[in-house]
């Protein structure tokens, strides 16, 4: 496969026109250079009415912002977005312009043809002569390419964009047979930019208290046993739970079957000390995870389909015992919002939140009851990211509430002498401390919607107040 060196020639040959649907993955996160590089060419050609499918959008994606401002984007479908592009939608969006999916939902939608992609532009850290590619080699090695795998299989045209051509690759993640073209560029980005989240254990006493309570709850429900499986978000409290889990497993000689999702150095340490059999890695959250994927045979890169597609019976999270997740808001029906704040500002999105909450045997939300005076529990969340019917337990520093739909969990906690309260009482406790907040954002002008992993409209996004 002779690589292109000029993106203009590639666009000429592909005949990319107005209205094209283009996709990108976000494994380089805020270090990604590929989306800007491609959209710069789109901009030079003055292409309009574009239908874009980046798996996530970060502040680095400035060309997308200028295309939005110029009115050249018809619709954006993504799983997560923050920064200036998110702010643009929340201030200037028009109805149905933004469609937010989950990681598993995006995989489902691509496979079922619901997300119909003309050209997938895949940032590929290293590519060989046959068009095989890996995320493990090259200066911008980002590890797992999980979120790109359905694009590679189902887009009409697949273009790998790389800065590293090698003769031969063993154990490629993408096989050349699925690839149409290769574009060679100077740099696909900066892998250190994958550390764009806040990936450290919380030291905040409130956070530590919540993590300890989570551990007591896991004990009361007898979750941590040989062969159990576990996933957590990458928030500070979740990672503190991972750290406490590590201590417990070491002390009690317990070995987990697998950890899944976004993988960090904390998970790698547990793999390498034999506390967990397998890491199923859809996305590396730090460079230690990238290095581990390369050296550990039982650290396995998986596609978003295998991770979380609700139509794939063999998905990893179908057998997940427990997931620990965060919340920006939660309401008295246990609906969780991690997409917007209470002013309709878009601050993120589901990612795997709604996928894992639905599939895991036990889904736990960990959050401080109050964040900067604002009570986290609302009568109704600003935006539903994850339906309350899929959330089992809420843990705060001032008490634990079990979803009334999970009377089995409530009974087991009662028997174990683990004290709980109701989510309404927790909200009242917060109001007693903070006062009842005066306003909630008005929801008047729609700019998009949240789609469930099954493809149904879950909630509407509105301009910010």
């Amino acid at each position, binding site marked *: 496969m002779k690589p292109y060196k000029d993106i203009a020639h590639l666009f000429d040959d592909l005949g990319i026109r107005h209205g094209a649907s283009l996709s990108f993955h976000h494994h380089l996160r805020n270090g990604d250079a590929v989306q800007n590089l491609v959209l710069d060419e789109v901009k030079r050609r003055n292409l309009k009415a574009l239908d874009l499918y980046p798996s996530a959008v970060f502040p680095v994606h400035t060309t997308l912002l200028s295309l939005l401002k110029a009115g050249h984007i018809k619709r954006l479908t993504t799983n997560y977005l923050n920064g200036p592009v998110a702010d643009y939608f929340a201030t200037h969006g028009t109805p149905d312009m933004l469609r937010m999916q989950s990681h598993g939902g995006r995989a489902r939608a691509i496979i079922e043809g619901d997300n119909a992609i003309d050209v997938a532009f895949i940032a590929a850290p290293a590519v060989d002569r046959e068009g095989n590619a890996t995320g493990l080699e090259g200066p911008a090695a980002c590890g797992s390419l999980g979120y790109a795998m359905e694009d590679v299989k189902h887009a009409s045209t697949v273009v790998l964009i790389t800065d590293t051509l090698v003769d031969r690759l063993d154990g490629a993640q993408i096989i050349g047979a699925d690839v149409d073209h290769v574009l060679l560029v100077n740099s696909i980005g900066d892998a250190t930019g994958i550390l764009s989240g806040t990936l450290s254990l919380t030291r905040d006493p409130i956070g530590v208290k919540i993590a300890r309570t989570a551990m007591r709850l896991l004990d009361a429900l007898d979750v941590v046993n040989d062969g159990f499986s576990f996933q957590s978000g990458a928030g500070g409290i979740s990672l503190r739970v991972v750290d406490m889990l590590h201590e417990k497993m070491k002390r009690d000689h317990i070995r987990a079957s697998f950890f899944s999702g976004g993988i960090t150095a904390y998970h790698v340490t547990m793999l390498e000390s034999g506390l967990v059999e397998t890491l199923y890695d859809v996305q590396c959250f730090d460079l230690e995870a990238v290095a581990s994927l390369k050296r550990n045979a039982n650290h396995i890169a998986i596609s978003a389909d295998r991770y979380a597609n609700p139509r794939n019976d063999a998905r990893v999270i179908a057998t997940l015992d427990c997931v620990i997740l965060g919340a920006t808001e939660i309401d008295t029906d246990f609906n969780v919002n991690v997409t917007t704040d*209470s002013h309709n500002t878009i601050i993120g999105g589901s990612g795997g939140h709604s996928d894992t909450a639905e599939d895991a045997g036990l889904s736990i939300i960990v959050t401080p009851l109050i964040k*900067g*005076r*604002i009570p986290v529990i609302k009568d109704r969340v600003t935006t539903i990211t994850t339906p309350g019917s899929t959330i089992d337990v809420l843990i705060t520093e001032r008490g634990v509430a079990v979803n009334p739909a999970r009377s089995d969990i409530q009974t087991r906690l009662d028997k174990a002498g683990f004290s709980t309260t109701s989510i309404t009482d927790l909200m009242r406790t917060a109001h007693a401390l903070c006062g009842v907040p*005066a306003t909630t954002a008005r929801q008047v002008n729609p700019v998009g919607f949240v789609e469930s992993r099954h493809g149904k409209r879950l909630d509407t996004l509105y301009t910010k107040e």
Partner: protein
Amino acid sequence: MKTIVVGSLESSDCLITLQPADKTTIDIESVVYDAYGKRIRHVIERVLSAHQLTRVHVRCQDKGALDYAIEARLETAIKRHKEVNHGA
């Protein structure tokens, strides 16, 4: 007449600046102004009136402090104001 500054701009705290003035004025800047601005004003007015203080300018830069924290910061500011500006 000296300006008194009490508190901090850390999350969940507030910075109170108290200055002698011809009449009472209150400026509030808060990260939770929409939700709690009125309540913060009410707390400040209540503390000022309990001390029968009528000729001060109060500036409250709030980072999400709870009522009792705002009250405590303001109490301290008033105590210092009385010591410094009126002799203890």
